[in-house]
């Protein structure tokens, strides 16, 4: 399967300014809430005031009396989900696990869940009308603690959830939708061979992706049944699929346009408002706009799962890992979504180990349904594995990077699930980190350093791309992947590389679902690899067409025409690589530039365009390492992050600045999750910190400059060697930070976040010798 991977580039690997940059910094860029259309009205959602209750009745009569209220809706306006399965991009989803998140049906399972909606001529009026909707509830006991929810006698969230993965299949329902175990080798033999065994349990709280732009959409419908959606999303085609499924309207009636997006991180891989706005628009005959408040975003969109992970690792005296056992309990909120899978399968994928046992259970609680957050399911168990690896290295008196180098997986090693690795960059990442000046910089008293590594699988999936050439030879690239991290710039660079034309002459656009072939979401670290792959393929098709046209003009055979330096050259000998027009002229070769051919397109067969589609089967894993220096104020428990370095294998960084951006962003999010971010629920099961004041993501002044080192071990399966880069950066920060903080403070706090009150208590306990 190994193909020729290109290693010499003219455009790829440079850092042009992103085409969407000026619009974004001047405020011209249009995000989800920025579209306004003639006759537009405003939707408002009625949300549950209870964490668990039966919906007995919904009475819209008072709301409807308000002048200006034009439509109402509830789950009665949507088809029963039944057992329908919807083919999601990567995994199939049961409709009943997300339709009630859009609009609750019979029961509410978390505070803030959507119960009904109204639309009115102004946002204020819609809010007022929503207050007038009378919902009668029968309150049920809510269950917030995942251990309590996992008990056999716990109150049930659903009466039709039977644990999958248990034999014989259970006959009574429970709050545990999934149990999974993988193993290889002989775990007890592995521990018997160990000279040192360390076992610890780490807790990671539920947290939110914290994207700055709240969900927003505008929906317009017409009398012919057309449904146009404009929204902030990671995937316009996904919105089409899911909105069609939730509303029961045929896919063919939808056109979805993705707005510019202010962050998603996995949180915008589903729909919340769109199906509601569709129903309200159909009922009122008016375009409907809906915008979430920050409070709505925190309470009623999908955070990342909380998890408790017990890890036990055995090593020989000389530092070889003999056994790794993990046991994960993951809090998935009110509906199952299977984030446990990656956590169980890949939590120790960085290490060569013959004896592995990994077990996991998902638990349902009265909290919002979790959704993806960069490398979903991995950061939570990786904290446990990596912190224990650091502890083991310390107890063996080994350098933590040397310890990892000794045990790191490499090409040919086999993962616990049986898959062998192709060429991977973990060892190179470790070596780069070890050589980095940060790693050997001196620490002062009261400071600590932590390192951690992580693995992520990365996705491929389906993408399409279209390339159109204008009469003057300028080029338009159309793809269907919302640009979150600079992908338009990357698409242009890859096309420039194939076509041999300056990147500035290429205009990359993200277009609506009517204007390009299907594309899976911008997620799973797949866009540069898969959509970029489609762009490369389309550009190659275009080059072939251009050679054909030139050959026709010259009355030559296509094989006698080459494409180089952005032009067709009639072959007259060797040495064509990287030739320019002057070279060709000197040699007396005939040439036709892209502009020449574009001008004569009509005469040579019509407009120049190329289309490509594919299902990318060439994804390859990424590894990342972080080094963190922290300082702790022993009297207040406050942590300062002093220095931070990320090292990551990108395969090939198409646009290095945006790879660095992914690395830095992941580090910042992970630092926040480690130190302060957490969902705090009160006695009533209500989120107590649904805003950025008390849900503390780091602010710029909390952070040092995050240093980055890009390692490039090409993905042998991709024409340019690309691996995904967007997700793995979230996994190493938590263990790197936790290790650094515990070293600085002389504590062993395993319960995240390491917020000042908790850390101060741990410091005092350590000083008193009670810890």
């Amino acid at each position, binding site marked *: 399967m190994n193909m020729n991977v290109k290693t010499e580039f003219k455009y790829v690997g440079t850092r042009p300014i992103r085409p969407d940059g000026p619009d974004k910094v001047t405020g011209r860029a249009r995000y989800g809430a920025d579209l306004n259309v003639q006759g537009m009205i405003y939707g408002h959602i009625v949300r549950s005031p209870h964490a668990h209750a039966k919906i007995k009745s919904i009475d819209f009569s008072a709301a409807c009396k308000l002048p200006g209220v034009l439509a109402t809706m509830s789950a009665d306006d949507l088809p029963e989900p039944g057992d329908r399965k919807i083919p999601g991009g990567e*995994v*199939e989803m049961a409709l009943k696990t997300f339709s009630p998140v859009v609009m609750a049906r019979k029961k509410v399972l978390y505070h803030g869940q959507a119960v009904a909606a109204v639309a009115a001529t102004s946002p204020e009026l819609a809010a007022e009308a929503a207050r007038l909707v009378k919902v009668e509830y029968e309150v049920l006991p809510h269950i917030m603690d995942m251990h309590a929810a996992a008990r056999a006698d716990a109150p049930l969230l659903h009466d039709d959830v039977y644990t999958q993965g248990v034999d014989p299949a259970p006959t009574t329902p429970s709050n545990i939708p999934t149990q999974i175990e993988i193993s290889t080798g002989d775990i007890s033999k592995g521990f018997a061979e160990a000279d040192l065994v360390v076992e610890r349990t780490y807790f990671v709280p539920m947290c939110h992706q914290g994207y700055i732009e709240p969900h927003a959409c505008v929906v317009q419908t017409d009398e012919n049944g057309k449904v146009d959606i404009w929204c902030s999303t990671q995937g316009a085609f996904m919105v089409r699929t899911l909105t069609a499924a939730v509303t029961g309207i045929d896919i063919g009636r939808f056109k979805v346009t993705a707005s510019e997006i202010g962050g998603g991180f996995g949180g915008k891989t589903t729909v919340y408002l769109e199906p509601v706005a569709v129903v309200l628009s159909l009922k009122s005959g008016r375009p409907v706009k809906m915008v979430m408040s920050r409070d709505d975003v925190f309470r009623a969109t999908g955070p990342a799962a909380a998890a408790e992970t017990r890890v036990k690792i055995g090593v020989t005296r000389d530092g070889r890992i003999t056994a790794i056992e993990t046991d994960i309990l993951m809090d998935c909120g009110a509906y199952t979504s299977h984030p446990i899978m990656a956590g169980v399968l890949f939590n120790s994928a960085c290490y060569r180990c013959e004896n592995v046992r990994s077990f996991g259970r998902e638990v349902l609680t009265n909290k919002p349904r979790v959704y993806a957050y*960069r490398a979903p399911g991995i950061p939570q168990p990786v904290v446990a594995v990596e912190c224990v690896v650091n502890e083991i290295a310390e107890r063996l008196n080994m350098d933590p990077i040397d310890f990892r180098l000794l045990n790191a997986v490499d090409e040919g090693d086999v993962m616990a699930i049986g898959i062998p690795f192709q060429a991977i960059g973990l060892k190179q990442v470790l070596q780069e980190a070890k050589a980095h000046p940060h790693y050997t910089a001196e620490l002062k008293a009261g400071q600590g350093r932590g390192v951690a590594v992580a693995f992520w*699988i990365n996705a491929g999936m389906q993408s399409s791309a279209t390339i159109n050439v204008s009469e003057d030879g300028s080029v338009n690239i159309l793809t269907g992947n919302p640009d979150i991290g600079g992908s338009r710039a990357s698409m242009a660079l890859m096309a420039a590389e194939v076509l041999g034309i300056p990147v500035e002459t290429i205009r990359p656009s993200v277009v609506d679902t009517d204007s390009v072939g299907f594309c899976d979401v911008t997620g799973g670290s797949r866009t540069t690899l898969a959509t970029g792959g489609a762009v490369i393929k389309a550009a190659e098709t275009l080059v072939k067409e251009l050679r054909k046209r030139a050959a026709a003009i010259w009355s030559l055979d296509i094989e006698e025409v080459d494409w180089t330096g952005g032009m067709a050259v009639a072959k007259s000998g060797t040495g064509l690589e990287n030739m320019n027009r002057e070279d060709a002229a000197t040699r007396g070769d005939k040439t036709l530039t892209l502009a020449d051919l574009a001008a004569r397109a009509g005469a040579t067969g019509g407009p120049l365009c190329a289309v490509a589609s594919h299902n990318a089967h060439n994804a390859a894993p990424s590894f990342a390492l972080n080094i963190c220096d922290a300082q702790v104020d022993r009297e207040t428990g406050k942590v300062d992050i002093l220095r931070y370095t990320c090292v990551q294998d990108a395969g090939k960084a198409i646009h290095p600045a945006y790879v660095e951006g992914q690395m830095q962003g992941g580090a910042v999010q992970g630092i926040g999750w480690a130190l302060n971010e957490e969902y705090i629920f009160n006695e009533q099961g209500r989120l107590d910190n649904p805003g950025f004041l008390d849900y503390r993501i780091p602010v710029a002044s909390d952070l040092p400059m995050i240093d980055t080192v890009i390692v490039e071990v090409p993905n042998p399966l991709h024409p340019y060697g690309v691996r995904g880069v967007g997700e793995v950066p979230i996994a190493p920060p938590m263990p790197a930070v936790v290790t650094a903080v515990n070293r600085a403070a002389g504590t062993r706090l395993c319960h995240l976040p390491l917020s000042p009150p908790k850390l101060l208590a741990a410091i005092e306990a350590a000083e008193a010798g009670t810890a």
Partner: protein
Amino acid sequence: MARVILSADMQRYTDGIREITVSAGKYRDLVTELLQRFPGMNEAIVAKHALAIDGIIIQTPLLETFGEDSELVFVARIAGG
């Protein structure tokens, strides 16, 4: 004969057998062979999985082929963010 490693979920229908060899050279024949060999298993269970062929994970392997000495691994599909 290609070597096949079954997922944890599939092993529940194989009496715990994790590894087998098959004579199939195409995904479709592989599925037929599995269902014959393990009557407890059904197509839906197989279809829930991605197939890794010699280390390359393929989410939708319907039309895939592989060689006599290929290593095949059935793996649960993973969602990214």
